[in-house]
């Protein structure tokens, strides 16, 4: 049964039941007015990829197939060769035509109420028609107009509406759909074209792609990693944050937003329930030996936090998770503290809170299957050329070290007049543009020793002008033998830098552990016309991940006393321990009993409690230690009670191995067997 028939049935049911105060539901209209006919093709493939991506994202946001009405191309799924752009269900309820778009809108009008949420998403061709926006429907050759969309949508009741529109001249839709209950976003002004670009894995609609990434918190297909558009750390991405992220990642046009009711920052796709966020983010990398405070924000939406349920679970190097309550910082903020960690540690943690409607929620959402981790170590620069003096690299053609003169710029921009730092750079023709009809011309470093280096990363500052690769070329390549080269980057479009830009590449797959690494910047080939300023590079650095446990810098003083220090077994002695001079790390105090009983048998036993100590904290405590009335004891026995400061260890799991600067103190107890 097609979904729109089902929706019509829903409408009928709604009429029969006639429940006026139904809970707000989420609905969406998705229209992709083009049609994909092949993968990886410009201004083609994205007409399938992007509606599918937003459709899938909505399914994770309290929408379902029956609440999304989709018009796509001729109505059939595009048979992508990529698994992640295939779905077993039919995405389109309708093919795209004027009549079908109206039918889709009518479906929504039949089931929606004035308490519902409506999301309208459109992509396709657009063009100006006087002061109106004309929308082209590729599969039928029909047109419809912005005022018609306005009229058709006026039949759909809603409480809040979010419109995301990507066509050329899409700014023209704003005045048609804006009102105090709507946020209307467009990919461009009414005076601009809009574009698709190769983004991450293939061609994507340049505005809709980051919009979807923001909503989904990730790039598609698990290829280009996570996306965090949650600038206020609320744990949810508002429409305003979505737009900000999409705007920042749209380079070929100037996205617009209409938010008359000032609701974008408090409007979300999907029902806002309890959420866990991190105003300061979560760390990816921490230096060893330093504790780290994580600020947690638990935001209540249409449900409340069950008091006392904000918690986090932590473990290191496997084992069982310890769950502790988060420390309240007031309001919706809480704190968890990662202990000082060593290089070999593998901390894992997740957060939980219980909502009055949704039950226990986790961060990450599928914890503990997926958990947060953090690397222990730092990136250290092990190779650096600031170009203040001539590095003496191998040059060809007009590659030269020196001060650029600001010349050239027949097309694009001229060269800089100095380095990013200092005066000098390596550049191709420091006095002007590169030449026409060049062959590939290289600047090559000498060998760089990467032995023992891990996660090698290259960074440098670039000022580059080069024509589209249709005509001219610029490359960055690396090699481990100076003869076979791997291209790290090549120009994918026209590049016209007008300022220094820092460029960073992960070259670990090639460089890690290699005794020789060569870097090569290449100018050319070029064609017979249009010259640009070419490469200018400065401040070249290689860094690698390193971790070295630093010994504690504090000087711990441990004092222990045993009271009484003699008696007849069994009896109790009080072991008092104090630690002072803690200055820099999280430590624990422990007590230990060691004794040699009268028959010469060693006897050891961990006892006593322990506690976490923070830097600067003075610790003083005592334990009442029962000395055992062991049947084997005869005569006089000497117990040695030792107090020590130790590094953190799993709960109640001796031995507490001391590290770095430690101190111990002991007292003895003489015990006489009865």
């Amino acid at each position, binding site marked *: 049964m097609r979904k729109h028939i089902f929706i019509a049935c829903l409408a009928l049911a709604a009429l029969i039941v006639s429940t006026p105060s139904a809970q707000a539901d989420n609905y969406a209209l998705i229209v992709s007015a083009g049609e994909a006919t092949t993968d990886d093709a410009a201004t083609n493939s994205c007409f399938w990829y992007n509606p599918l991506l937003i459709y899938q994202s909505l399914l994770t946001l309290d929408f379902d197939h029956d609440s999304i009405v989709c018009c796509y191309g001729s109505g059939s799924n595009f048979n992508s060769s990529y698994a992640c752009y295939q779905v077993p269900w039919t995405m389109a309820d309708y093919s795209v035509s004027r009549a079908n778009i109206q039918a889709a809108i009518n479906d929504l009008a039949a089931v929606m109420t004035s308490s519902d949420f409506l999301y309208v998403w459109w992509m396709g061709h657009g063009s100006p028609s006087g002061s109106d926006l004309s929308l*082209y429907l590729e599969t039928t050759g029909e047109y419809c107009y912005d005022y018609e969309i306005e009229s058709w949508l006026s039949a759909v009741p809603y409480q809040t509406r979010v419109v995301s529109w990507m066509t050329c001249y899409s700014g023209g839709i704003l005045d048609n759909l804006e009102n105090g209950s709507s946020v209307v976003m467009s990919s461009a002004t009414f005076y601009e074209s809009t574009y698709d670009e*190769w983004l991450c894995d293939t*061609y994507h609609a340049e505005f809709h792609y980051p919009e979807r990434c923001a909503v989904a918190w990730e790039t598609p297909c698990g290829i280009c990693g996570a996306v965090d558009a949650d600038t206020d750390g609320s744990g949810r991405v508002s429409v305003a944050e979505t737009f900000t992220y999409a705007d920042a990642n749209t380079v070929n046009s100037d996205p617009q937003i209409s938010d008359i009711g000032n609701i974008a920052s408090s409007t979300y796709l999907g029902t806002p329930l309890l959420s866990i966020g991190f105003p300061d983010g979560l760390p990816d990398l921490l230096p060893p030996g330093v504790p780290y405070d994580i600020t947690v924000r638990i935001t209540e939406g249409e449900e409340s936090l069950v008091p006392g349920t904000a918690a986090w679970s932590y473990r290191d190097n496997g084992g069982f998770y310890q769950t502790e309550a988060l420390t309240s910082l007031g309001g919706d903020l809480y704190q968890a503290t990662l202990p000082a960690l060593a290089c070999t540690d593998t901390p894992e943690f997740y957060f939980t809170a219980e909502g009055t409607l949704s039950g226990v929620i986790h961060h990450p959402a599928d914890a503990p299957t997926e958990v947060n981790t953090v690397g222990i170590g730092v990136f250290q620069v092990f190779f650096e050329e600031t170009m203040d003096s001539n590095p003496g690299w191998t040059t060809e053609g007009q590659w030269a070290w020196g001060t650029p003169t600001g010349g050239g710029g027949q097309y694009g921009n001229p060269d800089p007049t100095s380095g990013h730092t200092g005066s000098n750079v390596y550049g191709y023709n420091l006095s002007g543009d590169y030449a026409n009809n060049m062959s590939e011309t290289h600047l090559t470093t000498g060998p760089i020793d990467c032995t023992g280096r891990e996660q090698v990363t290259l960074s440098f500052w670039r000022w580059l002008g080069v024509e589209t690769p249709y005509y001219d070329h610029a490359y960055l390549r690396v090699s481990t033998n100076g003869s076979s080269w791997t291209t790290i980057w090549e120009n994918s479009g026209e590049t016209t830098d007008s300022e220094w830009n820092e460029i960073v590449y992960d070259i670990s797959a090639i460089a890690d552990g290699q005794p020789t690494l060569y870097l090569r910047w290449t100018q050319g080939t070029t*064609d*017979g016309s249009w010259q640009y300023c070419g490469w200018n590079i400065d401040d070249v650095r290689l860094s690698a991940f390193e971790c070295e446990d630093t010994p504690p810098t504090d000087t711990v003083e441990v004092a222990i006393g045993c009271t009484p220090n003699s008696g007849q077994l069994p009896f109790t002695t009080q072991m008092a321990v104090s630690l002072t001079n803690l200055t820099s790390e999280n430590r624990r105090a422990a007590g230990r009993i060691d004794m040699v009983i009268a028959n010469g048998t060693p006897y050891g036993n961990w006892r006593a409690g322990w506690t976490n100590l923070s830097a600067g904290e003075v610790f003083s405590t005592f334990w009442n230690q029962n000395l055992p009335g062991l049947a084997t004891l005869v005569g006089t026995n000497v117990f040695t009670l030792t107090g020590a400061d130790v590094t953190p260890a799993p709960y109640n799991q001796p031995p507490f191995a001391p590290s770095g600067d430690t101190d111990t103190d002991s007292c003895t107890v003489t015990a006489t067997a009865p």
Partner: protein
Amino acid sequence: MSNALSNLFHRPALLAALAVLLAVAALPAAALADTPPAGTVLQQFPAPGTDPCGLAWDGEALWIADNASGTLYRIDPADGRVISSFKTSEGRLSGLAFGMGRLWCAEAASKVVRQLDTEGNRLGAAMACPLPEVQGRQPETGGLSFHDGHLWTGTVAGWSSTMNQVDPADGKVKRSLFTKGYPVALALNDTHIWNATHNDGRRLGLVYCYGLDDGLFVSQFDTPGFWPVGLAWDGNGLWLADRETRTIYRVSTGQEVVK
């Protein structure tokens, strides 16, 4: 014999039509199956120069530009031999067409169409390419073609990319069709219009075919190279120039009649 049949056999034109239908029906299945798939290379030869661009058909021969040397070449379609050539003072071209007995050249930088005679002399005034006036990223000139008394220009402007039917007398746009991909090369016959597009070197280029009457997409095929730069219809078949392979191809549209 019914009256209807009797009438039929007294009309020679209808009889001829019937004969043609029967003849087509009688074609061996193997002959139809031999129609090469769209995109099949039927013929190829090297393009002159190192930066070929544009492709045009003057009724007997092909024309192609070399942007590296600023030269226009007339090419024998039988073997690719250069019949004649001349240097031009025009800038880099994005498209080339032949119509009304003259060459039409779309110049990328100045975004004008110039008319040249077959010896390279300028004719008339330059005509501004019909590009949309937009803010932000500016549109670029694309391919060029001439058909049925009209110039067709390609506009490369993201999702506003179009093929435009232009009155050669005054440069006014009579009709615009949205394209898939970038219309960097155009060709037309009486029923179809093709645009070739590169995909920024990410995959092979593509040729898209649309109905000339309605502008609706009909079919597509991959080009032999990554950077198609010219298309031309010679009255019977489609020619394609590729910048990456520096080669001129005659390619099947998948619609050829097997003779």
